[in-house]
């Protein structure tokens, strides 16, 4: 299945190469965009939620992000990175901009303090029946605290390596290798 994705629409099962899908999306094919949206919307909203810590606001921002994605389709270049990474960047920037705006100025300090673990705990309390969330929660609990921190900063908060090194007070060279080992742990636990 390398390079192939199986997408389930409301009625149809599509097997289409991601590249083809993205190309069509860039040609402003709304149905291709709908599929991509189906693939990434939840994740992107999740990332935004780790930053803004407000589900309703996260939803709203998430929509804005995808509108932006739609209008800036032409600026994506597959030679420069993953499609997901591209949207991830747009989402992080939008969320961080929002946090830096007046209304959240006071809470700015808290931005880096909390990680996604907090949200998982909230989600878990609100809806204990959601098994896959419970599963993820279990695996997050298995992740070491230093892994939670580094993943949260690099992927969800968009910190650069240098910023991460400063934040966590570790040598710059360690960021890359520690992150590698943490992602490996995450992948291992996902397999189980």
């Amino acid at each position, binding site marked *: 299945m390398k390079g192939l994705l199986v997408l389930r629409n409301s009625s149809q099962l599509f097997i289409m190469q991601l590249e083809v899908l993205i190309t069509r999306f860039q040609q*402003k094919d709304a149905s291709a965009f709908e599929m991509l949206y189906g693939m990434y919307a939840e994740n992107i909203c*999740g990332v935004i939620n780790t930053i803004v810590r407000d589900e309703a606001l*996260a939803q709203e921002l998430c929509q804005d992000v995808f509108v932006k994605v739609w209008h800036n389709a032409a600026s994506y270049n597959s030679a420069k990175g993953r499609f997901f990474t591209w949207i*991830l960047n747009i989402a992080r920037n939008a969320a961080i901009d929002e946090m830096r705006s007046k209304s959240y100025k006071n809470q700015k300090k808290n931005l880096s303090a909390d990680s996604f673990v907090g949200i998982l705990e909230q*989600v878990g309390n609100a809806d204990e029946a959601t098994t896959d969330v419970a599963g993820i929660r279990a695996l997050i609990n298995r992740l070491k605290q230093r892994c939670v921190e580094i993943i949260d900063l690099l992927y969800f908060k968009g910190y650069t390596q240098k910023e991460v090194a400063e934040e966590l007070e570790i040598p710059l060279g360690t960021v890359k290798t520690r*992150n590698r080992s943490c992602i490996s742990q995450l*992948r291992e636990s996902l397999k189980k």
Partner: protein
Amino acid sequence: MDIKEYIASGILELYVAGQLSEEENLKVAEYAKTYPEIQTEIEEIEASILALSKAVSPKVPLSFDVFKQKIEIDESSEVVPLKKKRVNAFWYVGWAASLLLTVGLAYLYMQNEALTSEIKLFKEQSLYLEKQIEEARNSLARSKALLENLRDRNVEVVPLGGQEVAPSSYAKIYWNKEQQKLLVDAQGLPDPPEGMVYQVWSLTLNPLTPTSVGLLEDFTADENRIFELANNNSSEAFGITLEPAGGSASPNLEQLYTLGTVSG
């Protein structure tokens, strides 16, 4: 390049995070294209981040329909509608072209089918005509041979007249004495009834002695009604009688159809 070492360096994790410089990104993308292992690794890293980010997503699912309306409204109120129009034109032209292509292909397919069946028909016709030509050739060869036989100097023609049983019937015998061969032209004889056969007799007159020359077997088989028989008798006359199938030892004179004497 040591792929394993490259993967172990952690650069791919940073690539997915979007934390590399533009230059580094280009390099990674290039390697991913060249080495399937690297591509797979990137996809798996991405999948783990996707799983994690999904878990922290707001629980109210986002419907694309609402969203679609939003982009459509944005689209229609866009300041630069030129771009959109061009895209739409491509969209329609694309569909029109594909429709045209489909119709064209269907038309060509049908044409091809029609031509194929026509070719088949022509082949059958030509086969039939070849057969006819072959038959005509054979018939011509037979006629030529016949004519040559009749024109032979040694051939004596003996006309046979109709007798009491069948006054209107007639026959001709062409007798090549040298080759001791008879050609019986039985065109003037009616088709024999089922189970009966014409028998040709050689006669000597004084005293009247009939000798069987042969049967006109399969009477209707030859359209020309020409029969070849051997005759080594010094015949003075010929007669043809109707006999039961297989022929008789002596002629049934009540069924004598035609009779004729050798002139000289």
